């Protein structure tokens, strides 16, 4: 399964990644972060196909996707 990492120090909670994810594998968190932002969180992470769209659209370089090794 692909794993999504969100850097809570860099993320400013614009939620563009939630909007742009083609598989809807992210959602807005119900909690508010230490800096006062509503951060995204993985939602049905098994839906993530590792396309990397969230990495391209992120304005703050705060999200990363670890792609599952297909050979394993």
């Amino acid at each position, binding site marked *: 399964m692909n794993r999504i*990492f969100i850097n809570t*120090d860099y993320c400013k909670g614009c939620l563009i990644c939630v909007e742009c994810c083609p598989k809807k594998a992210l959602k807005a968190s119900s909690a508010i972060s230490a800096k006062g932002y509503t951060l995204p969180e993985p939602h049905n992470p098994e839906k993530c196909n590792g396309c990397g769209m969230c*990495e*391209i659209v992120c*304005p703050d*370089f705060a999200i990363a996707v670890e792609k599952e090794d297909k050979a394993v």
Partner: protein
Amino acid sequence: MLKHPMLKYLKEEGPYGPRLPLILCPGCGAGQVLNFTLHAVDSIIEEGGAKKEDFVFISGVGCSSRLTSHYLNFDSAWTIHGRSLAIATGALLANPGLNIVVFTGDGDAAAIGGNHFIHAFRRNINVTVICMNNGLYGMTGGQVAPTTLSQAITSTTPYGNIEDAFDLCRLAQTSGASYVARWTTAHPLKATKAIKKAIGKKGASFIEILSQCPVHKKETPVDMIRALKAMTVPIKKAEGSDKIPVGEFCDTPRPEWTEKYETIIEKCTARRS
């Protein structure tokens, strides 16, 4: 924890402590354009098209121009307002082999740097100009700019803008640019592809990326990205539409300025000897 793949090109730590997160407001389009550019530059470096040392990033003043020397782990210069293209010309004359990328905002390119803008394209110097057009002066408080759309509300046009906006792509094209394209932050893959193509072109290339300023427009970034997608139309279907055309405006190679300059130098040195 896995980090964003483009963080390898950014300076996370500086002499006075951490430099990231970026200074930009949440959801700013300028951060997205930096991300697109780094993806394009990364794929060029991975394919062996150029080395990291060959790239120089130059910017003027404005929100979008904060992106160069403070954050980028490339050779870069954060220069004076509107004159980034003049400094890029100087850098190119000193070393014609460089891949120069100029980050500029709409105020920097079209307002204070308007003359540098048109003459850089007239000369067809080998630079890639990436203009982040959010349609207002973001850093100074969201005032009306030459690129503000007609009827748009800004802090100095509370009843709607009565002027028409500058079409920067048409301006660059008629001034003589070799490659001109316009995309928005709602078209990340196409914008990245256009930036990659523009860097590979010899001559002046211009990429305008319509972006969002959620703070001064008082909308959420997601709503603004949806609006950008809705207000644009591909250039082939733009005939008769009142929407903003996006796509490739021109791809017409012309002799490049430093090459012509080299031939003059060769001619004069041959005559002397």
